[in-house]
Each structure stands twice: as structure tokens, then as C-alpha cells.
């Protein structure tokens, strides 16, 4: 019950007028970029990182989180109405959501999506509140050897869940680790690989890296392949779903919520994988699987609940252990570190307002999204008529301003150009940049903890096996690596990314 009173404290922090305002701003922005194809939460958060530097840590996290889960809502709107997933996590929503819309039930599909998301958001908030104390107790046991294994787990997971060849993903993660060593080594004070370039002494600019590799590389490939935009189906007449829809959907919502909450906790998974898994599960559980793909309500309700629940619980590994599971979470970690807060075991005890305030704000944000989305749906759809030729110079401009304003350094803007070109090349070579970004963030931590652990053990690697928690985690790592090698899983993974 202690955590309930902590949660209450979080609510009172999140209800501060400033925090409410930025929560709303984050949700609006998130919905907007979720609706607009060609700009995702990752790029938006990277662009806004510099601005959050001046804000209170809680306020900035609340806004950034709002963008993240707001984008899940916005993404499903276009998925249903235009068969155009705004975000990867809403790809599966297209399958049945758009079919429902084609059958004149767009309103019901939108309402089901929003309501299941809201329900999942509420449950995930409670789930986190109930789980936090035991997770905090667990994270207290985590010392350097465990951190090394945990970080390895995070890296392996990022490889498993990346697109394309696993071997290339491994290479990308290693490259990220190497790029992370650039700059001044914290332990010896020596500068590494900087080649006498003064601005590199503090390491590569994380924001320039993220924006270049993700935001601008995406922009370039959008310009290369002008997107064929779907046509809007009919008018939205009746918004409220029928009683029958509710009867069909509620079990799917429950399963999706449970699945999403648990999958969000695992490093590396996140919202997109959760929604896909939920769709597969619903299809298995259904009495009549043939309805799927032809406007089955469960096919919208389950995945939408799952992606929202996962979006929320994926903050747990980040906040409690300091291990970001996805590239977006790596950015959130960057935001925290810029504020001088090291995410990790101590955050719940040393900074309870930050932790619980964020959790509470997610519930509030979900409520706001429900209100923003349903009545204002027409407005969001209108946003789609903004042509890309106007959108992309603006995205480019804000990326430049964002990167520059962080350190008032035009060198960082040059680096943005370098990373944009690199990100473009990586796309051409079919290398997924997500493992690189995660490894770049985790690299310095990995090196530091590896050093410490091996100092304690006098250089013996046995320390990773002798400690029970570390051993348990190592078994997870080995199991994950086994999964990559297993051919049947590889086939499934390919399939998942194809759909």
C-alpha cells in the first residue's frame, strides 16, 4: 500500500498546472506526428531534447512521454482511416481497422481503438504501481557484475528485435559501442579517438547522432520514395460502437493489456512487437479466425491495448535499471542524463516525485488523448493534407536548430550532416540503426561496470557466474542468443517484420 500513497504523491505532482500543460502539449504533438507519416516519435523527441534542457526534469519527461504514447494514438487513427500506419506500432491496426472503415464502421473502429488504449493505459499504470516496490528491491541487488550482464541482455535484445540480418545487427551494436568510446575516458582521463578535434573531447553529440541516423535518414528516404497516400474512406457517422462490438472486444482488450504490460518490461521489445504479438494471439484464440483481416473488432482492440500498455511499462527498465529497451527509450535516457539524473536502481527512492509523477502523468495523458482524439478526429485527418514538400524543410530546420541550441555549437550541426549521410548509407546497405543507438548510450556504462566488476574479481570472469542474479541474467542472454540462431524463430521474425 506504500506504493499507492507514493502514486498519490505522483498524481499531485503531475496535476501541477505546468506539468498538466506540458502533458497536454506532449499529447497534442504526439498525436500530430503520429498522424503525419514521415516523422515519428523518435525524431520529434530528439528535436525537442534541447528545449527540455531548460525545464524541470519531471516536466520534460512528462512532455516527452506524452509525445511517445500520443504517437501511438495518432498512428492508429491514420491506420484505420487511410490504411496508412503513422507508426510501426500501428501497422497491425491497419489489417482489421481499415477493413472496418471500408465497411462503414470507421467510427466504431476509432472508438474501440481509443477506448482499448485508454483501458490498457489505466491498467498499466496500476500494474507499475503494484510492481514497483518488488522491482526496486530487485534493482537494489544489482551491482557492477549484474549491470554488465543486464546491459549485455539489452544489447542482445536490441539485436534480436532489429530488422534484417542478425549478423549485421551485431556489427551495428559493436559499432555503437565503439562510437560511445569517443571522447574523454572517465576512468583514465585520457581522450580517445578524437584526432585533435576539440569539440569531440566531450564525445559525439547524442542528439546529432539520433536525429541524423533516424530523423533525417527517414526524411531522405521519404523524398526518394514519394508515398502513395491512401484515400479516406467515407464519412465518420456513428462514433459509438455497438453493444456487440463491446462483447467481442472486451476479452481481446484484457489479453492485449496483459500481454503488452509484460512485454513492455522486457528489454528490447516495446510497443510495436507487443501489438504484433497480440494480433497473433487474438487470431489463435478466435472461434472463427477467418474473420481476421476482414474487419474483426478483436484485431483492433487487442493490438491497440497491447501497444499502449507496452509503451507505458517500457519505462520501467529504463527508470529502474537504467537500461533503455528501445531506441526511443535510449533518447529518454539521454534526456535524463542531460538533466544530471542517472536512471537506475536508486531513482525510486531518491527521486520518488520524478518516478511517480511520470507514471501518474501517463494516466492523465491517456485521458487527455481520449478527449483529444475522439471529438477532434476530423481536425487530425485534415492535417494529412499538408503536403510533404512543405513538411520536410520544416522538419529539417527544426532538427538543425535543435542540434545547434543544445551546445551552441555549429560543429554539432556539421555532425548532423555527417550522421544524416551515414544514416542514408546504412539504409541503402540494409543495416538497422536501432542497435547502434542503444549501444552508443549503453557503451560507456558497459565499459565502466565491466572495469569495476573485473577489478573486484581481479580479472576473473567467474564473477559473472558466481553471483546468482548475474547467473540468472546470463541464462536469459544465452536463451536469447539461442533464439536468434534457431531457424524457426528466424522465420517468424522475418514474417513479423514483413506484415
Amino acid at each position, binding site marked *: 500500500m506504500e506504493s499507492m500513497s507514493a502514486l498519490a504523491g505522483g498524481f499531485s505532482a503531475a496535476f501541477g498546472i505546468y506539468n498538466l500543460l506540458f502533458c497536454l502539449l506532449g499529447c497534442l504533438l504526439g498525436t500530430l506526428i503520429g498522424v503525419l507519416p514521415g516523422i515519428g516519435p523518435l525524431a520529434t523527441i530528439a528535436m525537442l531534447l534541447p*528545449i527540455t534542457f531548460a525545464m524541470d526534469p519531471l516536466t520534460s519527461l512528462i512532455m516527452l512521454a506524452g509525445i511517445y504514447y500520443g504517437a501511438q494514438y495518432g498512428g492508429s487513427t491514420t491506420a484505420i482511416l487511410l490504411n496508412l500506419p503513422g507508426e510501426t506500432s500501428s501497422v497491425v491496426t491497419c489489417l482489421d481497422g481499415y477493413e472496418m472503415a471500408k465497411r462503414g464502421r470507421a467510427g466504431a473502429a476509432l472508438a474501440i481503438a481509443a477506448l482499448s488504449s485508454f483501458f490498457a493505459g489505466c491498467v498499466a499504470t496500476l500494474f507499475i504501481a503494484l510492481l514497483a516496490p518488488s522491482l526496486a528491491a530487485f534493482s537494489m541487488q544489482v551491482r557492477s557484475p549484474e549491470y554488465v550482464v543486464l546491459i549485455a541482455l539489452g544489447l542482445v535484445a536490441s539485436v534480436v528485435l532489429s530488422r534484417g*540480418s542478425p*549478423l*549485421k545487427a*551485431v*556489427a551495428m551494436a*559493436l*559499432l555503437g*559501442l*565503439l562510437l560511445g*568510446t569517443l571522447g574523454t*575516458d572517465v*576512468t*583514465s582521463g*585520457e581522450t*580517445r*579517438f578524437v*584526432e585533435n578535434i576539440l569539440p569531440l573531447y566531450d564525445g559525439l553529440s547524442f542528439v546529432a547522432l539520433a536525429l541524423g541516423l533516424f530523423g*533525417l535518414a527517414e*526524411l*531522405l528516404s521519404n*523524398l*526518394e520514395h*514519394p508515398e502513395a497516400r491512401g484515400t479516406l474512406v467515407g464519412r465518420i457517422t456513428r462514433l459509438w460502437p455497438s453493444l456487440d462490438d463491446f462483447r467481442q472486444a472486451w476479452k481481446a482488450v484484457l489479453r492485449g493489456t496483459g500481454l503488452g504490460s509484460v512485454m513492455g518490461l522486457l528489454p528490447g521489445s516495446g510497443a510495436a512487437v507487443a501489438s504484433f504479438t497480440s494480433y497473433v494471439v487474438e487470431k489463435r484464440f478466435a472461434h472463427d479466425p477467418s474473420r481476421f483481416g476482414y474487419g474483426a473488432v478483436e484485431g483492433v482492440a487487442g493490438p491497440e491495448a497491447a501497444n499502449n500498455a507496452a509503451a507505458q511499462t517500457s519505462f520501467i527498465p529504463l527508470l529502474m535499471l537504467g537500461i533503455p529497451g528501445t531506441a526511443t527509450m535510449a533518447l529518454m535516457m539521454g534526456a535524463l542524463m542531460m538533466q544530471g539524473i542517472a536512471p537506475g536502481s536508486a531513482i525510486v527512492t531518491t527521486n520518488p516525485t520524478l518516478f511517480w509523477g511520470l507514471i501518474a502523468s501517463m494516466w492523465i495523458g491517456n485521458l487527455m488523448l481520449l478527449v483529444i482524439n475522439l471529438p477532434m478526429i476530423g481536425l487530425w485527418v485534415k492535417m494529412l493534407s499538408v*503536403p510533404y*514538400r*512543405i513538411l*520536410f*524543410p*520544416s522538419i*529539417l*530546420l527544426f532538427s*538543425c*536548430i535543435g542540434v*545547434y*541550441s543544445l551546445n*551552441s555549437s*555549429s560543429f554539432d*550541426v*556539421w555532425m*548532423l*550532416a555527417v550522421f*544524416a*549521410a551515414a544514416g*542514408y548509407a546504412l539504409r*541503402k*546497405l*540494409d*543495416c538497422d540503426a536501432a542497435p547502434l543507438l542503444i549501444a552508443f548510450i549503453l557503451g560507456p556504462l*558497459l*565499459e565502466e561496470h*565491466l*572495469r569495476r566488476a*573485473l*577489478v573486484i*574479481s*581481479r*580479472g*576473473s*570472469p567467474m564473477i559473472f557466474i558466481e553471483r546468482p542474479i548475474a547467473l540468472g541474467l546470463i541464462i536469459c542472454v544465452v536463451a536469447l542468443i539461442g533464439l536468434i540462431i534457431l531457424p524457426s524463430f528466424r522465420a517468424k521474425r522475418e514474417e513479423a517484420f514483413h506484415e
Partner: protein
Amino acid sequence: MGALRSRDFWSGAAFVAIGAWFLWRGQDYRFGSAAAMGPGYFPVLIALVLAMVGLIILFKSLRSHAAAIERPVLRPLVFVLAAIVVFALSIERFGLVPATIAAIVVASPASREFRWSETIALAVGMAAFAALVFIYALSQNMPLARF
């Protein structure tokens, strides 16, 4: 011949080259031992593994038919990169408003659908918006305009 157009061949080659560079430059730093790692220990080991993984990717690409690299389209790449460079060059020398206008004007032709009238309107609008948001509302430390 097919290898020279293959994605895997070139990504493998790039990983080998980058790994080799870090291995070479990493020799300048003390390696140390596992119990007392020097600044060279971690990067050199990782670079070694990267080069090896790169080699595996490279050899695998020679033995099987890997997908060919999609032809790059130069127009967007050139204008977008040029716009970033123009921004980098002008932000400190001329300030936010000129840098914004220059970046938008240089970036816009990246799209085939670009129109001069729209671009000019967008540049002016964005300059006003950026000045309001970044200099007045967020009081970021950058000059508005200077000549």
C-alpha cells in the same frame, strides 16, 4: 561481379574498415589487463570483434546471392545535406533568421514538387516562427540576425 553491387559485401567491407581503424588508433592507448583495464582495452577488443564480424558478413556475401544496393537518388541527398551545411555556416555568422531562410530555400528543391512561391512563403513564415519560439519564448542563446 555481383559482389560489387551487393549490400552485404559493402556493409561487411565498411565494418572491417571501421574496425581496423579503431584497432590501429587504439594502439596509442595503454591496453592494461582484465583486472586493471587501460583506456585501450575495451575499444580495442570491440574493434577486433567488429572487424571479425565484418569479415564474416563479407565472406558470406561472396558465397551467396545478396540483394543489390538500390540506386541512390542524388537530388534529395544533395539539397538536404547542403541545407544543413548552409545552416551550420550561417547560424553564428548571420544569426537565426538568415540561417532559417537560407536552410529552407536550399532544402526545398530536394522535392520534385517544389514551387518557388510556396518556398518563399514557408521561409518567411518559419523565420518568424523560429524567432518567436526559440529566441523570445525559450530564450535560447543564439543571435536573431547580424550582418
